[in-house]
């Protein structure tokens, strides 16, 4: 019960964030097409100015369509991770998509997150949804603790996934204390146990390490 509640909450948060992004994409396309219509209707521009303004708006529309297509294709891939209870996942690709889809959540907190791929296509036989829930909980717990301007690097190497915090403006010991005492820490451990991941916090990284 708790498991399915956690999965549903995870999908709800990601979907809400991505649909908000898509609303912004559509809003920009709508404003630009409206601007083109305004310019043509008002007919005040000279021919060269008209061409330049229309060209600028068309460029913006094309850019937003591409942003929208990227969001929907990633969201589509994400929704298909529910297809199988257990499957071989490409860890890098799964985390890259998750980081992309959670972009607005981290951006709202002023935290930058990047993935550093140091191993070729590491894969894992796991429950794809629970694996993503575990990774998302790690990201979310760090984002909630870190101050704006901080960075999280996700590094997949040597059978581990490291969520390393940089530019934190916080001492490593304090950061570890904050992670362990955060309400998400118990949830991270509970979820990790369900997919045979081991969650640890160290001052060396500093951040969270998942061992698979």
């Amino acid at each position, binding site marked *: 019960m708790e498991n399915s509640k956690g999965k549903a909450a995870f999908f709800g948060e990601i979907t*809400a964030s991505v*649909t*908000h992004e898509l*609303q*912004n994409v*559509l*809003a*920009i*396309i*709508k*404003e*630009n097409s*409206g*601007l083109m219509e*305004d*310019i043509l209707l*008002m007919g005040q521009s000279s021919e060269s100015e008209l061409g330049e303004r229309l060209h600028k*708006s068309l460029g*913006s529309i094309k*850019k*937003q369509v591409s942003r929208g297509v990227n969001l929907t294709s990633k969201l589509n891939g994400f929704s298909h991770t529910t297809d199988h209870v257990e499957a071989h996942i490409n860890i890098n690709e799964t985390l890259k998509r998750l980081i992309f889809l959670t972009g607005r959540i981290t*951006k*709202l*907190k*002023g935290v930058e997150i990047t993935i550093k791929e140091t191993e070729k296509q590491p894969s894992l036989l796991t429950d794809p949804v629970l694996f993503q829930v575990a990774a998302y909980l790690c990201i979310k717990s760090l984002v909630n603790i870190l101050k*704006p301007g901080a960075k999280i690097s996700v590094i997949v190497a040597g059978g581990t996934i490291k969520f390393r915090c940089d530019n934190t403006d916080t001492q490593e010991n304090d950061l570890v204390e904050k992670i362990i005492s955060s309400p998400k820490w118990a949830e991270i451990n509970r979820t990790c146990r369900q997919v045979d991941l081991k969650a640890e916090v160290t001052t060396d990284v500093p951040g969270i390490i998942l061992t698979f």
Partner: protein
Amino acid sequence: MNNKNIKILLIDDEAEFVSTLAERLELRGYSSKTSEDGEAGISMVESEAFDIVILDLMMPGLSGLETLRQIKVINSKIPVILLTGHGSTKEGMEGMRLGAFDYLMKPLDISELINKISLALNL
């Protein structure tokens, strides 16, 4: 008051959205300035006289609601129209409780925005 004398401040972190909306308002004769975050928007309200503020609720850094609170501390009379996404009406209602004039959903309808501006400024 004709449109040329109306100064609008637009605050939204989506740079292309806010610049295009400003251009459309200018084509209709309004004078508009833009800010891509709440803190910069608040500084602009402190240093310049605006007739109305159009403010996005979901922004990185200072949230839309916190930006609204601080704008109202600087100038309690300035009307603020909030922009929300569909499904965020709760935040829009909360904004109205904090003194916003009204809220509109994104993607915007420009004629609806103009109508709200006119209502807010008693034009």
